[in-house]
């Protein structure tokens, strides 16, 4: 049984010009202790998917299971419990920390809210957490604006792991950081995963990061899941035309090897009131009439799922 199971999850937003199908019929599994990388262009619904899974937003339709338990519609005390077992690390370490709370106050917050610990235990735990994520003790009364991006993100991480959750949704946790600091934060996340058996959902548009950290990768396009596979296999053998195009865009450091870019034509369409069928079809070089039918995710190799009706021909 997977830690997180998502079946036919939908999240629609009503906007002025119609209904935005931000997350449309997504099915995925995240195993305990593994990292699921979710990649896709900006605005394809990656973050919305993650936020819906951890119940920060209510899903429109579908089922979310945590350890086999249906958490799609839980509320009240049960929702509090569920939120303690799942947590989130935000993209922007500048806006995700309250500017008027010190480092220590921020880290204490989830501990206090859980009501599991008394004051003294909270204080001790907060200190342990600071140690764990590598924030110097002297910074415990510093305000977020006094810290650099990397340290801020460490505070965010300490806050996220405070209650020892099973699952953390990482919403582009390194994309706002300098490259030199990205590696430190990624390593910290990987160390924590090893020590606590955390499962991550790692939302990003940075393919080199996802290659480094993810065990499995899901590729999204305009709210739909187009392909999901173990990371190595996906990079070795991308099957969906969109995945192929996406991966061919990674710059290579080997200048002797000629690059074979798949260049996509046309503009990205919109997820507002979409037509049925594959949303990538208008830009797909292999598109046929069958593409306008609803697509199903089919297993083409062990654990390698693709949502494309022309997969045999490509």
């Amino acid at each position, binding site marked *: 049984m997977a830690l997180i199971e998502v079946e036919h999850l939908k999240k629609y937003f009503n906007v002025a010009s119609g209904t935005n199908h931000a997350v449309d019929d997504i099915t995925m599994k995240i195993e305990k202790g593994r990292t699921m990388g979710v990649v896709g262009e900006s605005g394809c619904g990656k973050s919305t998917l993650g936020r819906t899974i*951890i119940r*920060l937003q209510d899903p429109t339709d579908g089922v979310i299971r945590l350890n086999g338990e249906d958490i799609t519609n839980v509320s009240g005390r049960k929702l*509090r419990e569920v*939120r*303690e077992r799942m*947590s*989130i690390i*935000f*993209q*922007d370490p500048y*806006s*995700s*920390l*309250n*500017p*008027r*709370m010190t480092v220590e106050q921020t880290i204490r*917050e*989830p501990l206090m*809210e*859980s009501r599991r610990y008394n*004051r*003294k235990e909270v204080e001790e735990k907060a200190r342990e957490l600071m140690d764990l994520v590598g924030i110097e003790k*002297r*910074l*415990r*009364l*510093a*305000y977020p*604006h*006094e810290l650099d991006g990397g340290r801020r993100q460490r505070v*965010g991480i300490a*806050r996220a792991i405070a209650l020892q959750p099973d699952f953390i949704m990482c919403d582009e946790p390194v994309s706002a950081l300098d490259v030199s600091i990205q590696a430190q934060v990624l390593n910290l996340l990987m160390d924590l995963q090893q020590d606590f058996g955390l499962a991550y959902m790692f939302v990003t548009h940075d393919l080199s990061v996802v290659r480094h950290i993810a065990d499995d990768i899901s590729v999204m396009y305009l709210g739909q899941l187009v392909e999901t596979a173990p990371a190595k296999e996906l990079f070795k053998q991308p099957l969906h035309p969109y995945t192929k195009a996406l991966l061919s865009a990674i710059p290579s450091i080997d200048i002797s090897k000629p690059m074979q870019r798949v260049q996509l034509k046309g503009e990205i369409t919109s997820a507002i009131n979409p037509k049925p069928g594959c949303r990538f079809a208008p830009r797909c070089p292999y598109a046929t009439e069958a593409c306008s039918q609803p697509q199903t995710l089919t297993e083409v190799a062990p654990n390698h799922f693709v949502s494309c009706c022309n997969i045999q021909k490509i």
Partner: protein
Amino acid sequence: MRTEHEVSEKKKHHGGHKDREHGRHGNHKEHRKLKRESQIVQIWKRMIKNRVSLVGCIMLAIIFLLVIFAPLLAPYDPNYMDTSALNAAPSAKHLFGADNLGRDILSRLLWGGRSSLLLGFICAIFGLLIGLFFGSIVGYAGKSVDMIVMRLCDVMSSIPGMLMAILISTVMGPGFFNTILAMTVGGIPNSIRGSRAMALKEREMEYLEAAKAMNCSKVKIIFKHMVPNIISPSIVGTTMMIGNSITGASSLSFVGLGIQPPDAEWGAMLSGAKNFMLQHPHEVLFPGLAILITVLATNMIGDGLRDALDPKLKN
């Protein structure tokens, strides 16, 4: 520089706490109190570091002292009419002169400051609290709550503030507390609108979402996380309101509501004297100056306080 100093200062507390950890349970509270105080002390220190707000603080402190010790300082009974000194110009006998009924203006200023200041400050603080309370809730909740409350505000602000104040005073009758009520209600739509605008801006910030993910209740999200971040602009507005309330209350006295004669009040003195403004300018000059200086001082403090409350401007 400043930050390092503060961190080391707090380190001392931290060390002190460790020493006391062997002690009784009560020591925890003591530690907590110590830190709280030091935060207020920090804000205070930051505020008086700013020259302008320091001057404002001193000015306001002097005004308050003068008013508090009015019984000792006032040379005459504020309501005593000296018929030999009707409209007397400033002289050694009447330092600020006397009004058309021969009452000593200095004495009336000192005594009248009591109700004027109290009225100004209470109105402004009520306005701030009510505005923050409703503005933040409305801004965070959005949708239909926002719609309903803001339309109510529109209705309220469609009635001119002074008319509203007169209406309330007429219904409730004159008197000190009814005057406060009348002056506060008129300012509510504006202060709600201001707080709401800030709340709308702040609502998009991820730290509020983080608080939600940490299981904070809505009340906590709004009042613990959001309000401290939207309070600064409201504080400046509040200092403005102190002056507005003092002058507004004088308009109420002018139409026979508000604080009743013969009780002295700055606004009432001003409006009572304006008929003789050309012949006896000193009768409007001194009450006007009193209001001016008070408003100036509070505005200076307000600016400094806004900066001092902003942790980003610490250095």
